[in-house]
């Protein structure tokens, strides 16, 4: 029974997904949107409910599943993302030819997978839940199956994703083979017990796993798919990729590195630092010439993966907390951006940046929302992104006190900030400084408005009153033996 307590959220969402499938049979087409709002509302309730769940110290399911603060932090994050993405999906539903309710349902199943990843404490469960997320996203990415971009995105995501999971599982095999366990805690104990540098075969496996996870968080060298898939996939799915799937990837990465592989951190932290630098540069440089906003956000999400990897590579409590905080605010920021984008593209039928020009006049609320989210992504106070970056830089500089080569990473980060500001302001310029060719105002539905207000409030609120989220993230990061 205790174990059911552990997975209650997963069960809740899964059942609701199945219920949706049934409901679908009895709802006429026009009400599909309503169903979406209902689903979103339900998830929101679940989100609120999740705050009633208390973390539990010891693991469940023979040590492969944890319900610690870290897990809860991420579960809430995923629920939030799911709720807003469902809202988007509802807005988006007119553009889905067939199977709207299935769309909602799949999103929920995907979320179940993510909820799992938050608690994963064992490589087998890691693989399975990761696959649940990924395979669902294959379907979702190629959901608009009569539009080539969507299909293309789906195919790319499918093949490269499968390749990545091939790497992952092969790596798992080697980790299992060289240590004889798949459980993170056990792994950590064993590694701690063993003296000297780990066996090359083990490191080999570790690296393959990391590369595989790198695919999910789209870090170098497995980042190339990101822009294409983000551009092609249906916008709600893109949002889910940015917010959910990336967060899931980081949840796993943090677990694996900090819970499982911490004793051998000397082997991997340099690697992560280098990858962070490379990812930062790749994402931000590549974004400069972009004209399509979804593609731009694709590149920018690579860049942000780089920022967060900075925090990961610092291997200190500050860094872990910073990454968690960053993911939290990143969710709000991106959701805000994508809400705005969906609303605009619904009117303009184009997600090229020029089609956003004059948005500030056409629809002040959308313009403001998009502008604020861009600025938050760029890390400008008083928005949440600013404090996120501040913490990440702090983590790196703290690390640099002992290993001054990290100053270099900080400098790369600084350069990245400047570059990123350039292309984010490119969007901002379109919104406020340029004139629209047709100045017809854009109507925004009430739920949409609500969502936008919530996200904006969150962005500004977190940016100014950082305390609650910082506290939460620190508590969540405490589970790792970092200092």
């Amino acid at each position, binding site marked *: 029974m205790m174990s059911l307590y552990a997975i209650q959220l997963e069960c809740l969402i899964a059942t609701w997904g199945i219920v949706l499938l049934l409901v679908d049979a009895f709802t006429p087409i026009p009400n599909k949107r309503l169903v979406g709002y209902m689903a979103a509302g339900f998830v929101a309730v679940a989100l609120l409910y999740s705050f009633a769940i208390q973390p539990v110290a010891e693991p469940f399911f023979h040590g492969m599943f944890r319900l610690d603060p870290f897990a809860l932090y991420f579960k809430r994050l995923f629920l939030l993302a799911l709720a807003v993405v469902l809202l988007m999906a509802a807005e988006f539903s007119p553009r889905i030819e067939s199977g709207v309710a299935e769309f909602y349902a799949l999103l929920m199943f995907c979320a179940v997978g993510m909820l799992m990843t938050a608690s994963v404490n064992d490589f087998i469960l890691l693989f399975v839940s990761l696959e649940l997320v990924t395979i669902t996203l294959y379907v979702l990415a190629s959901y608009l199956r009569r539009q080539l971009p969507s299909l293309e995105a789906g195919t790319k995501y499918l093949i490269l994703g499968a390749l990545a999971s091939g790497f992952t599982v092969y790596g798992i095999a080697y980790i299992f083979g060289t240590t004889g366990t798949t459980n993170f805690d056990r792994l950590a104990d064993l590694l701690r017990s063993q003296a000297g540098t780990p066996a090359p075969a083990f490191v080999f496996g570790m690296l393959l796993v990391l590369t595989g996870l790198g695919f999910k968080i789209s870090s170098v060298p497995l980042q190339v798919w990101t822009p294409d898939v983000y551009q092609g996939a249906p916008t709600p799915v893109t949002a889910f990729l940015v917010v959910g799937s990336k967060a899931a990837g980081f949840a796993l990465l943090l677990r694996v590195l900090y819970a499982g592989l911490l004793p051998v951190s000397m082997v991997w932290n340099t690697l992560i630092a280098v990858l962070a630098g490379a990812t930062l540069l790749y994402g931000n440089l590549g974004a400069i010439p972009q004209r399509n906003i979804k593609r731009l956000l694709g590149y920018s999400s690579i860049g942000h993966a780089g920022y967060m990897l900075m925090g990961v590579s610092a291997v200190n409590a500050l860094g872990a907390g910073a990454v968690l905080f960053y993911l939290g605010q990143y969710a709000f920021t991106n959701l805000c951006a994508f809400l705005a984008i969906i609303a605009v593209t619904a009117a303009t039928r184009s997600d090229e940046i020029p089609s956003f020009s004059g948005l500030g006049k056409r629809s002040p609320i959308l313009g403001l929302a998009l502008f604020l989210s861009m*600025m938050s992504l760029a890390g*400008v*106070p*008083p928005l949440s992104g*600013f404090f996120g970056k*501040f913490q990440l*830089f*702090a983590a790196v*500089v*703290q690390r*640099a*006190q002992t290993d*001054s080569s990290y*100053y270099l990473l*900080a*400098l790369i*980060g*600084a350069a990245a*900030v*400047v570059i990123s*500001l*350039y292309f984010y*302001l490119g969007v*901002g*310029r379109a919104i*406020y*400084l340029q004139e629209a060719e047709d100045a017809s105002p854009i109507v925004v539905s009430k739920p949409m408005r609500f969502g936008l207000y919530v996200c904006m409030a969150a962005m500004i609120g977190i940016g100014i009153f*950082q*305390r609650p989220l*910082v*506290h939460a993230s*620190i508590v969540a990061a405490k589970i790792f033996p970092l200092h």
Partner: protein
Amino acid sequence: MDILLTIAVLLPLIAAFVAFLLPAKNPKAIRALALFATGVSLLITLTLFASFDRTKSGYQFVHSISWLPSYGCSLKFGVDGISMTLLLLVGFVSFCGAFVSSEIHEREKEYYILFLALATGISGTFCTMDLFFFYFFYEMAVIPMYLLIGMWGSLPPGKHGRTKEYATMKLTLYLTAGAVLALIGLLAIYFAGGTLDIERLQHNVVLARTTQTIAFPCLLFGFGFLASMWPFHTWSPLGYAAAPTAASMMHAGVLKKLGAYGIIRLALPLLPEGARHWANLLAVLACFNILYAGWAALTQRDWKFVIGYSSVSHMGYVLLGIATLNVVGVSGAVLLMFAHGVMAALTFSLIGFFYHQTHNRFVPDLSGLARKIPFVGVCMVMAVMASSGLPGFANFASEVLVFLGSWQQGSTLFRVATICAVWGIVVTATYLLWAVRTSFFGPFDEKWSMLKDAVSFRQKFPYALLLAVLLTVGFYPRLLTDIIRQSVATSVVSHLSTSSEATAASAITASNSRATP
């Protein structure tokens, strides 16, 4: 009493939020709100200045709200002599800026919101005693500037061959680059010093040499970007030229001072080793600012570019004063920051006054305006005289102090630097008098017969106020220098009292039997 300071700082931001809620249909109300907010915070600042204890050297009116316990970070405001002076500057300039903003006639709501946010950002940076919030406010001033210039600015074509979008983008990127660079240094200080509280850092923390050598260049160049230190100055004339009047005032007047303030407040006292190591380079760069920018200004034809370059060259004096690392020089630098701030604001507001009517600010195109707009002409002549260091205006006192300080520093390099600086005054006078003579004197050109002078009190007020400030401080500089000196001596120079300073001081105490009447 202490809460007043916090109010003075945050009032504009609060007003901005209120304005956000007000309907855009009623610009009058929003404008009134902006005037009210800036005016009240100016009044509060003046009261604070009046009740400022001139005998104490530490921070006063300290008010602190615990913000982020995990970082030991708290929203803590407090002023010492230096920041008090600069807070006054912000008060005057932002009030006058709000005043002259009446020229804005489209999207007032957004305009005033951004303007107020900008004001808080700047004054917050000057008053905060917490590293995090220092950086927070510092960065917060950047984006409003971007929009202010981008949405309400104007950049007539010229040899620069740029658009206002380019200008504002360049400005924003420069400022951010500087900010992030500085951030690294600040964080290094934080981790080495173990606290975010600037006062604590200043008093009982001595940072390791390695940290200093790494962190100081970060701060120096990071803040140098904002202080338009050569060769990182190119954003600034362009930015001013493109900005709307009030934005140029705020920017040339106060925003630019943030950089120098950062160096004085953080870099010098916290990283004395680094400071001594880099002082000479700073002095050289300062000379480049002074002369190079001055000569460049000689070739400008657009009023705003002339003034833009001149403000770059004036920042050179500030940097030189900082580089001297002695009480006289640094005090001079601080006073000059104040004086130049007011002067630049005055000049830009005057340019704005006639540009708003002529839509032309190319010096050769204008001629004999003084007949048509005598009041503005007189103010402009006075502003120009102030800027070229005429006694009676605050600028003179501060420049003299800078000269004295830099001469007192003693090394040959600084002697040469001083000579350059003194020569810089002639260069300044050359281009400023040229500009005034060309566009205000000489035969009146009939095509400007539509010009209207400032007649009503409302129109004259901001210019009169700024001039009054300049003259008051110019006639009695001790109004500010006393408190500046207190703080500079105790909280800046005491950390890096170089040998030359020490000897000079001893020699003087020996000589000045009547030092204290």
